[in-house]
């Protein structure tokens, strides 16, 4: 294993032979720990500057994104995979044209109508199946930071031959307003 990946595992506080589920669980835990206040961080508040917190959160995001790629590549490596050619009928085209906002649910509906499995998408795009699942269910808190997320949404849209700009803009708008609402609580 390359030294870089060792550092990413260290950042997420798991051993280098951890499974992806451990990596993900630890990532979610650390993100929650350093983006909010709890007695664990309050007790050491005088040393925990906002700046340092943000540094840590950035490192956590980067480590998670890199490790997600690392695990995807490990699983897919030899399989390759090909993007199927879709020949959608009129009904389907009309359905897509009628969508005003590409929410997670709308995306899932489209994918299911096309009969595409998350796994095939993951194999082709080299983006984790877990991300696509979280995108469809709009599990925002489990998703990586905005910069990474946008890329995954675009990958999703491209695979289904949707307009990537429109899909990403819609989706990220929903994401941002939900995050804002969450922060205001």
């Amino acid at each position, binding site marked *: 294993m390359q030294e870089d990946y060792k550092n990413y595992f260290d950042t997420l506080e798991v051993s280098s032979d951890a499974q992806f589920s451990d990596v993900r669980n630890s990532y979610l835990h650390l993100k929650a*720990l350093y983006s909010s206040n709890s007695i*664990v961080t309050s007790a050491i508040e005088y040393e925990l500057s906002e700046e*340092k917190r943000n540094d840590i959160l950035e490192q956590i995001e980067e480590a998670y994104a890199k490790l997600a790629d690392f695990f995807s590549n490990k699983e897919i490596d030899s399989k390759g995979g090909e993007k199927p050619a879709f020949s959608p009928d009129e009904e389907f085209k009309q359905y897509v044209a009628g969508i005003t906002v590409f929410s997670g649910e709308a995306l899932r509906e489209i994918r299911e109508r096309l009969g595409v499995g998350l796994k095939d998408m993951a194999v082709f795009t080299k983006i984790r199946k877990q991300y696509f699942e979280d995108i469809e269910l709009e599990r925002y808190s489990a998703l990586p930071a905005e910069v990474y997320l946008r890329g995954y949404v675009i990958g999703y849209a491209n695979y289904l031959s949707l307009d990537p700009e429109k899909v990403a803009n819609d989706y990220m708008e929903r994401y941002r307003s939900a995050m804002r609402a969450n922060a205001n609580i």
Partner: protein
Amino acid sequence: MNNGADKKCEIWAIGGGKGGTGKSFVTSSLGLHLASKGNRVVLIDADLGGANLHTFLGVSKPRNSLTDFFDKKAPLNDIILNCGMSDMGLVSGTLSSLDSENIKYAQKLKLFRQIREIDTDYILIDLGAGSHNNTIDTFLLADKMVVVTLPEITALDNMYHFIKNVFFRKLKMILGAHGLKDMIQDVWKNRDVHGIKHLKDVVDHLMGTSTHVRDILEKELASFSVYIILNQIRNSRETVIGASVRSVCLKFLGFDAQYAGHIEYDETVLRCINKRLPFMLTHPYSHVAKEIGKLTENLKDGRHVSMMADRYARRL
């Protein structure tokens, strides 16, 4: 199980900064679990200001104590009391007159030497509250350093203070042993100049001064680890605090920490203590006893509880 001669004795010290976190209860319970598995155990009550480890083992008035060692020059081996179980000994810390803060350096060294010479499998040292140098040096003497804390902000605050002092003293000792005694004080005094905000920055700064210092620190700190026990948790969400504290140690304080496990809150424990009944013997099948058994095994093997394994643990 008793392969005394070829097996090296292991010393565990149990501290944690704040009083009332359950250090003595945990120490006695760890000892009772180890003894029940066929290990020979000696417990030492080093809480010289408020010794009561004997109470947790059902001993009302210890016949001998460290007073005999300090005042009457009795060998440590002669003041080990037999208690509870056949394979368990106790060195009581009850002092009649001695000013515990003023134990002379020579006496301290003698005590440490004699602790190492005890013929047993495990020595568990129960430390007092606070971050006095005597307490910290005794803590650093151990092969395994264990802190007991509660899911309360004051307990966590005191624990951070304690382990920071422990780590700082360890750094001083390491550098001192290599003729760099004043280095760490200088760095700390000038921390504003170096842009140092917390302990991890100090380590990073020291590591950056020269490859010589880096090599020394890397070698000496490789085995430095603190084990965390979270006591009296009241709901499953609190178990995650152990993993969180570990993260803070790694990311801010600059040293390795392991989460050994949690013990849930149970009023029966207090009732047993008040009746001077050893809980592990009277309630061996309780949840608390099982949790203590599990975390003792974790400590023994130097194993760490992964956050998820603990979070989804059984009933909680």
